[in-house]
């Protein structure tokens, strides 16, 4: 069964450093997303991406964040200068459709720890 994969599973970085989280969405999916979950809190939407453009981004997704689909398979989230409060689980998701029944399939997540 096709699945979303994410690397690395755990990333430790120092405050102010840049990190890139990588995702390989399901191959026939066209819509891609990043979410995060701070420990003990709800899963929060960060950004949606389609046709090489951001469709929507949340207030969390400020100028420190960027997304890219550098090739036909990878989807990346970059945080330019990490802050302590960026520590969270980051989930990538993909879907076949955008509206209506857009069941999104999630990867296993990357645990980002900023020290």
């Amino acid at each position, binding site marked *: 069964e096709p699945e*979303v994969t*994410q690397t690395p599973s755990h990333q430790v970085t120092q405050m102010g450093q840049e990190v890139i989280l990588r995702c390989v969405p399901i191959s026939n999916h066209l*819509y891609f*997303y990043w*979410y995060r979950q701070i420990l003990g*809190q*709800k*899963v*929060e*939407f960060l950004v*949606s991406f*389609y046709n090489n453009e951001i*469709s*929507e981004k*949340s207030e969390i997704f400020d100028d420190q964040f960027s997304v890219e689909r550098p090739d036909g398979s990878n989807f990346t989230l970059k945080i330019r200068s990490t802050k302590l409060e960026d520590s969270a689980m980051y*989930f990538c*998701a993909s*879907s076949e*459709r*955008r*509206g*209506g*029944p*857009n*069941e*999104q*399939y*999630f*990867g*296993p*997540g990357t645990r980002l720890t900023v020290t």
Partner: protein
Amino acid sequence: DQQVKQNSPSLSVQEGRISILNCDYTNSMFDYFLWYKKYPAEGPTFLISISSIKDKNEDGRFTVFLNKSAKHLSLHIVPSQPGDSAVYFCAASDQSNTGKLIFGQGTTLQVKP
């Protein structure tokens, strides 16, 4: 801005009995609702969904009920099994077609053998 709320942080049921997980929402523009299940150290796994034009959707042991007038939905699991023990998230999407899902806080279900 809690547009999707799961007011019960935890639920414990006996194996074989029914589990009922509840979810309330405030945004009448939501047109699609989904339930996800999450085990520790894994991503959310899609379980079942329902369109706002329906009031019930069933898939095996899982049934989702939607009461639009009350802005309430529930997930029924019958019969509950120990392997169902996980965190269950309710999520909603609106008609903006950006695909954004808004999640509730989650309910931890424990099914006791």
